[in-house]
């Protein structure tokens, strides 16, 4: 079974990715044999997190294959409520993960501004999803060290970052890598051999990325079926909050 931990609804302003509708997302999942997806909304990323988070819950209501993922902000300006309010609303809405865009949203994920929000996520068992380009590896490591109960999934590794990723994986136990654009030659097998399939989470990056990349990369990997199954869904299910599985 494949569960996509890195998918998005909504339009994109700088690329033709379709309408970003629920229908398109489900059609795409069917085409690639993806059972479920953790979805954020571009409205939360590229316009207004608070509004996007609210609208995402309305969009996925009654769609059990789509698990909502909210976008966090530091609580410095009160845009998404206090950390306690944000987390309570997220859990009440069935949110299973929270995504951060510190580069695009102009804050420091590892600084004091986000500490209380990240602590609240850790307490709630909500994993934090963040792309490598949004945070950088020193920030990821600082966050993971400061919040050892927080599960962090770093996506969008590309093919140039194994040196940094390997260091952080070696020094932490709560950092995982997403498969979307994890494109180092033989990198997936190398990572699984070193750190285990439990550190890798299937994700496509759709619709900005073509799901064919991650699906082909995983199924044609030089890995046994048990590791492929773990990466395909098992690792993610182990990261989600209690009650969300």
């Amino acid at each position, binding site marked *: 079974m494949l569960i996509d931990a890195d998918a998005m609804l909504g339009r994109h302003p*700088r*690329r*033709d990715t379709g309408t970003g509708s629920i229908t398109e997302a489900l059609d795409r999942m069917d*085409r*690639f*044999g993806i059972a479920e997806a953790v979805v954020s909304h571009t409205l939360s990323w590229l316009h207004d997190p608070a509004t996007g988070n609210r609208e995402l819950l309305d969009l996925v209501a009654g769609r059990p294959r789509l698990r909502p993922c909210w976008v966090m902000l530091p609580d410095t300006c009160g845009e998404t409520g206090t950390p306690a309010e944000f987390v309570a609303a997220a859990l009440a809405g069935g949110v299973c993960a929270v995504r951060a865009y510190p580069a695009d949203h102009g804050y420091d994920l590892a600084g004091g501004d986000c500490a209380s929000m990240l602590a609240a996520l850790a307490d709630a068992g909500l994993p934090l999803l963040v792309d490598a380009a949004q945070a950088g590896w020193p920030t990821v490591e600082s966050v993971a060290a400061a919040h050892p109960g927080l599960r962090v999934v770093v996506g969008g590794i*590309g*093919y*140039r*970052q*194994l*040196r940094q990723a*390997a260091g952080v994986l070696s020094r932490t136990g709560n950092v995982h890598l997403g498969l979307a*654009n994890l*494109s*180092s*030659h*033989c*990198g*997936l*097998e*190398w990572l699984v051999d070193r750190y285990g399939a439990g550190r890798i989470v299937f994700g496509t990056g759709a619709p900005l*990325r*073509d*799901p*064919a*990349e*991650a*699906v*082909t*990369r995983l*199924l*044609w*990997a*030089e890995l046994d*079926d048990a590791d*492929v199954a773990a990466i395909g869904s098992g690792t993610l299910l182990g990261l989600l909050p209690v009650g969300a599985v």
Partner: protein
Amino acid sequence: MNAITSAVWSRRPQTSVRIVDAHAHAGPYSLFFIPEASPDAMVRVMDRCGVAHAVISSHLAIQLDAAAGNAATAEAVGRAPDRFTGYLTVNPWQDPDGELARWGDDPRFGGIKLHPDLHDYPLTGRRYAGVWEFARRTGCPVLTHTYDGSPYNDLDEVDAVAAEHPDVVIIAGHAGATPLGFDRAVEVAQRRPGVILEVCGSFNTGPDIARMVRELGPDRVVYGSDFPFIDLRISLGRVIFSGLAETDQAAVLGATMTRLLQWRSGQG
């Protein structure tokens, strides 16, 4: 579901189509760690997926030393001639005419590789004159790196050299590399019949590849992966799941590139 996608889902190598990777390298690269960069490991990955052949230029050749790197490419091809063909890398700063003279008649090489971005030299520059003369005279295809907006190998440079050398087959590596670059690459290829689009890179998608084939035809678009720079399966998956008709897909995956590599058989 066709035979290739069925092979993916069942996790076995595909055997229904001859796949030729038109854009590959070999060996380590200083900017980042590649776990298994050797030609032997590349063949193992090719076997895992059912890729018959790859056209390679060593990373040593494109990154640092064309002479030593071309020798490394030749050695890799010589050890597995049924799996690899070489691209002769021409660095405009490192005796370009000498490299052409040294390797031009060597059957281990089936194409020429230019990387203007890595060598800080424009595709339109005079130091490449010998390349175009050799390619025109022999029919040897020329693969050039392209990147939309680059000062050295933007689509405008591809357009200019294709206009100046209409008899040369120019393979536009990465097809412009970005969504805007794909649009511009298609426009250049529509104007210049000698231009072939090669589809590897970080930003291409199956729908973009299908559109290139719709606009240009399956004899103008070739699959490449850039491996081991990038994992072979990333670009391959895009083509496999692109929704192309089977004959068109077979052309993109290998038939068109196989034809482009036949130029030596036409030489006296």
